[in-house]
Every structure is written in C-alpha cells, then in structure tokens.
C-alpha cells in the first residue's frame, strides 16, 4: 500500500515539475537555481549508486571480497571506455555473478 502511494506521489511530483514553467503563463527559473539544477543528475545518481556498491547491511565494506564493489568498478571502466549501456550491464553482471559464486557469503 505504501509502495502504491509512493508511486502515485512520485508521478504527481514529476508531472508538476514538468508542467512548472509550461502551464503557468508567467514563471521563470532564477539563474542560481538553474545553475544548481545542472548538477542534480550527476550528484543524485552517484548518491544512489555508491551505497549499493560499498554497503552491506548498513556497514561500509571497502574490500576485494565485496562482489558489488568490484563489479561496479568494472562497470564504471567499461561505461567510460565504451559508452554502451549493454556492454556495461554485461560486464558488470558477469563479474558480479562470478565473484558471488566464488565468495558466497556476501
């Protein structure tokens, strides 16, 4: 139920942001806000990805025995070199599966 409600709220907020300067006829974005918004995608995506790579049950696991961390680093390099989502996914999942099989505890 909470999940359904969250999805509805996210949808409503997203629509409001898209309509914000199109539906009302006289609004514009202050330049400082516009400048800040340019960094939202890079900052927010990183903030989302990093805990999934370096965390395990709320603790920091910065070791070679963490398959997600190693797979994430490999994916980062592949994404940077190839700019291809498909290659990034294949390389990342392959490394993740391989390491998970070798190190079954994490």
């Amino acid at each position, binding site marked *: 139920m909470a999940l359904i409600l969250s999805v509805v709220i996210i949808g409503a907020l997203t629509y409001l942001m*898209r309509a914000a300067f199109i539906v009302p006829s006289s609004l514009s974005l202050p330049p400082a806000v*516009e400048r800040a918004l340019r960094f939202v995608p890079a900052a927010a995506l990183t903030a989302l990805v990093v805990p999934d790579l370096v965390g395990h049950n709320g603790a*920091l696991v910065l070791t070679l025995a963490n398959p997600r961390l190693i797979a994430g680093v490999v*994916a980062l390099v592949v994404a940077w070199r190839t700019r291809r*989502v498909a290659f990034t996914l294949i390389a990342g999942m392959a490394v993740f599966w391989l390491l998970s099989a070798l190190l079954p505890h994490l």
Partner: protein
Amino acid sequence: MTATSAPSASRAPRPFLDGARATIPLLPGTAPFGLIYGATAVSAHMPAWLAQVMSVIVFAGSAQFAVVLLVAGGASAVALVLTAATLNLRHLLYSASLGPGLREAPRGWRLLLSYVLVDEVYGVVVGKMLALPMRARLRYMLGSGLTLWVAWQVSTFIGIVVGAQIPAGWSLDFAATLTFIALLVPLLHDRATIGAALAAAVVAALAIGAPLRLGLALAALAGIVVGMLLDRRPRARATNDAAAPTPASAPTPAAEEG
C-alpha cells in the same frame, strides 16, 4: 530531423509524423532501459501491474530505476519519494527552457505536452521548437512524445513478462545499479560535474548507516554544492553551453532514458 527534408517537401506539412520520425532513431537507446526496468522491477518483488502503472504515471526512467533499487533494498516510502523527486528535478530545467515557446498555446495542449516532456523528447524538440509555427510546434512535440511513450510502455511490458521467468538467484536487481553507472558516466564531462560526483560518492559512503537513507539527500546536496563551487569560473560555463542547442540556457538532456 532529416526526415523532414526532401521527400515531404511537395506534400502538406505533417508535423506530428515529423516529430515521430525524429524520435524513432532514439528508440534503440530507450527500449533496453524499459526492458531492464520491467525485468528488475519484478525481480525486486514489485507487483507486475504496479511496475507497468509506474511507467504510465511516472514515465521517467531514472526515477523508476531508483524506486526499484530502493524497494530491493527495503527502503522507506519517504526515501522512495525523496530520491525519485530529486532525480526528476532536471525536468524543471526542461520545463523552463520550453516554457516561453509554449506560452501562447491553448491550456489543454500545455497540460498534455507537460506529460510527455521526458529527456529524449526535450532533446528532439528543443532545437526545432521556435523554427515551427505554433500549430506545427505542438503537433511536432506530441508526435515525439507519443512515440517515446508507446516505446516505453511496450518495452516495460516485455521486460515484466521476461523478468518474471528469471530466477531470483540471479540478483537481476543489481542491473538497476549498473544501469545508473552507465547513465552517470556520460554526465561527467568537466571538472565541475566530476567534482560533484566525487563529493556525492564520499558523503554517500560515509553516511551509509544513516537512518531513512538520509545519506542519499546529504550526498546529493554535497555534490551540488561542490559542483557549483567548481563551476564559478566563466570559462567552464562557456564550454558547458557550447554543446547545447539553440536557446541560450538550454540544458543538455540528462541521458537516454524514458
């Protein structure tokens, strides 16, 4: 864009079809995200119908992936909403950029076109908007938006059907994290954006045990502040804007996703 030239010159203008045609080349980049989203959503134990409904009412790839990732990690509803809303803040930029060109449009059109203002559609229409008369402008954007919408819904559906067949032991939800990495890398094109990402990464790692996934908001905020500090110099701004299409303040679409 090229579809509008030679062959249609003798016929009546068909802006709706032109908008659709200009969007089709982007679909091979978008559809895989829809597939992966659908598959990871069911793999994270989200009900199949809700996964599809989310594609309809949210219609924004990165926010949808974020919800899947957080649901898989057992995050709270508050964390879901805050994260998705933060990721979608970029739509304010698109809205502000297209707003002036739609100011004279009927209200119904403005309400409708707001719904289809996703990354790809913004990228397709931003350079074209002001070159078209109002009537054509609206239909061009609608053609682009509806094309992308249909592709997103169909690819989500296929992803859900396929994903339901994949065993849970494969941890397919990790694909959502990898997708974010693929979306993130092209955004790191200068000192300021790289600095923003590094700052966000450090804070996210340090705040990992924080309740309610508060670390996420803190990390995003730290990234934005560091990015703005590094962006102070006018030289950096000029290089940023060189890549952007016509309107002076046009933001570059974040990445390929729905």
